[in-house]
């Protein structure tokens, strides 16, 4: 039995999405009545037993240096090994770009039912039934696995982290090796920014900001809030901002705690990627902007006036709290 969970680290530290995945795996495992085996791949400078705080009973560290670079095929082999080793019933991963690369490969190897974009805890575990987001946040579909094993890829930031305090046993596997059929040449890290799918607060700008030179204002607001920055599609099409910041139906789908949209009209394709945010604030000079219909809080006003005032008010708030 067991539920296996894939954890990812970034610059040697566990990603928050990994804690969320472990926590999800623990809650699923307790529904099944089994334990959680977390898999750590490649070099990691963290105390691996800390995964116990999120509910991992065991941690297997596949430490062969060949695995320091991400590779979908070899990582899928590792997870297959962990599943076979523990006769696990299923695997949980976060729907990061790497998680999304591995999950379908793993589904074929394990002959498992893969459910992606998972948005809540399982409704039943035998058969595995779980609600997932679909139609770019315009709907949900409950899926059922038709195979004995399941793989659940969860929406980052979707379900949240529940702490527990299990003592995790750590085991190192130095010898396992696996073939790869592609090779990582280089990694180009985006400077200083918070990866969008992980950001709890996102500040986003649209065509209403008039030009790339006006993004200082957005970045200052983001800095005060510890937020990631995003943009609407035309803004990335015009290269005011990088593609990786484009959110919406054809960009990244996000569901932060707080989404602040500045100078964005709220077209259906934009809403499709952001409407699952828990709280939405819209700042727009046009009181008829459709975005207000999808917002929790709105300010009708000129962004060039409102945003600096908001940044100042938040600075003051942060200084006092």
């Amino acid at each position: 039995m067991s539920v296996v969970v894939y954890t990812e680290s970034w610059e040697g530290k566990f990603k928050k999405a990994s804690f969320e995945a472990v926590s999800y795996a623990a809650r699923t495992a307790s529904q099944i009545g089994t334990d959680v085996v977390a898999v750590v791949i490649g070099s990691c400078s963290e105390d691996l037993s800390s995964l116990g705080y999120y509910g991992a009973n065991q941690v297997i560290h596949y430490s062969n240096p060949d695995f320091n670079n991400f590779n979908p095929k070899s990582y899928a082999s590792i997870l297959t090994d962990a599943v076979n080793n523990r006769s696990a019933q299923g695997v949980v991963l976060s729907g990061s770009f790497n998680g999304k690369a591995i999950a379908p490969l793993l589904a074929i190897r394990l002959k498992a039912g893969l459910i992606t974009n998972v948005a809540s805890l399982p409704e039943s575990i035998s058969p595995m039934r779980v609600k997932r987001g679909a139609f770019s946040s315009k709907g949900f579909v409950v899926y059922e696995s038709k195979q004995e094993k399941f793989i659940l890829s969860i929406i980052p930031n979707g379900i949240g982290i529940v702490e527990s305090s299990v003592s995790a046993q750590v085991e190192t596997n130095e010898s396992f090796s696996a073939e790869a059929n592609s090779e990582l040449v280089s990694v180009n890290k985006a400077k200083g920014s918070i990866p969008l799918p992980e950001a709890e607060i996102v500040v986003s700008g649209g065509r209403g900001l008039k030009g790339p030179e006006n993004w200082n204002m957005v970045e200052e607001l983001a800095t005060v809030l510890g937020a990631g920055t995003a943009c609407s599609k035309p803004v990335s099409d015009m290269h005011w901002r990088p593609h990786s910041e484009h959110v919406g139906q054809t960009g990244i789908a996000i569901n932060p705690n707080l989404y602040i949209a500045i100078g964005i009209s709220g077209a259906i394709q934009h809403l499709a990627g952001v409407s699952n945010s828990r709280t939405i604030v819209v700042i727009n000079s046009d009181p008829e902007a459709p975005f207000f219909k999808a917002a929790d809080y709105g300010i009708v006003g000129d962004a060039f006036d409102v945003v600096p005032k908001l940044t100042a008010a938040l600075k003051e708030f942060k200084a006092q709290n």
Partner: protein
Amino acid sequence: MKILVCISHVPDTTSKIQFTSDGKSLDTTGIQFVINPYDEFALTRALWFKEKEGGSVTVVNVGKANTEPTLRKALAIGADDAIRIDAEPTDGFAVASELISLIATEKYDLVIMGRESIDYNGTQVPGMVAALLDWPFVNACVGMEVEGGVATCIREIDGGKETVKASLPMIVAGQKGLVEEKDLRIPNMRGIMTARTKPLKVIPSISNEVATEAIKFERPAGKQACKMVSSDDVKALVDLLHNEAKAI
């Protein structure tokens, strides 16, 4: 290069999504179906490869006869020929299982798909096809060049980009960046006319296995009315975000 582009047939991005009253399926009344936007980037990149070094671009869809207009549109954009595998695309595994025998028999050098279908957002088919064929796989691809049978691909990762090399044949799941938005082609009159005479072959389904099943469709919960705050009182917004929404 002999290239295959896999196309899914999805509701236009402006569609309001409704489900049938029994909650068992998508209500397609009034919905326009289009080429999955991610697949348009894939198709355009494939056409560039062909224009540069020759070869052919085939498009394929796993679907019933109602998807043929979508395939014709891909032909009008510039694909040489189209194939429809006559099966209901019930889940990612079913679609992948239908595609692999075509890919293996036709010996494509490169298969380009989209990062995900905007209907079910599965992100399953490309990776599953790669695993079934044991071919290299690059997802979220935002740039690709091929030289001497080796592809150099840039893929998006959380927090940056990485460059990956692999030998053809391989499976690429792409998105904007593969080509830019402005590079996408709108079919012109001549394209539409010639598309009518280009071959569209229908081949029978070969598999009926699924790994998952959709049980129930639900609409998201509606939002409460938006609370408006005066632009002269942004402090009130900070208070609401802190005390009411507990978002900061």
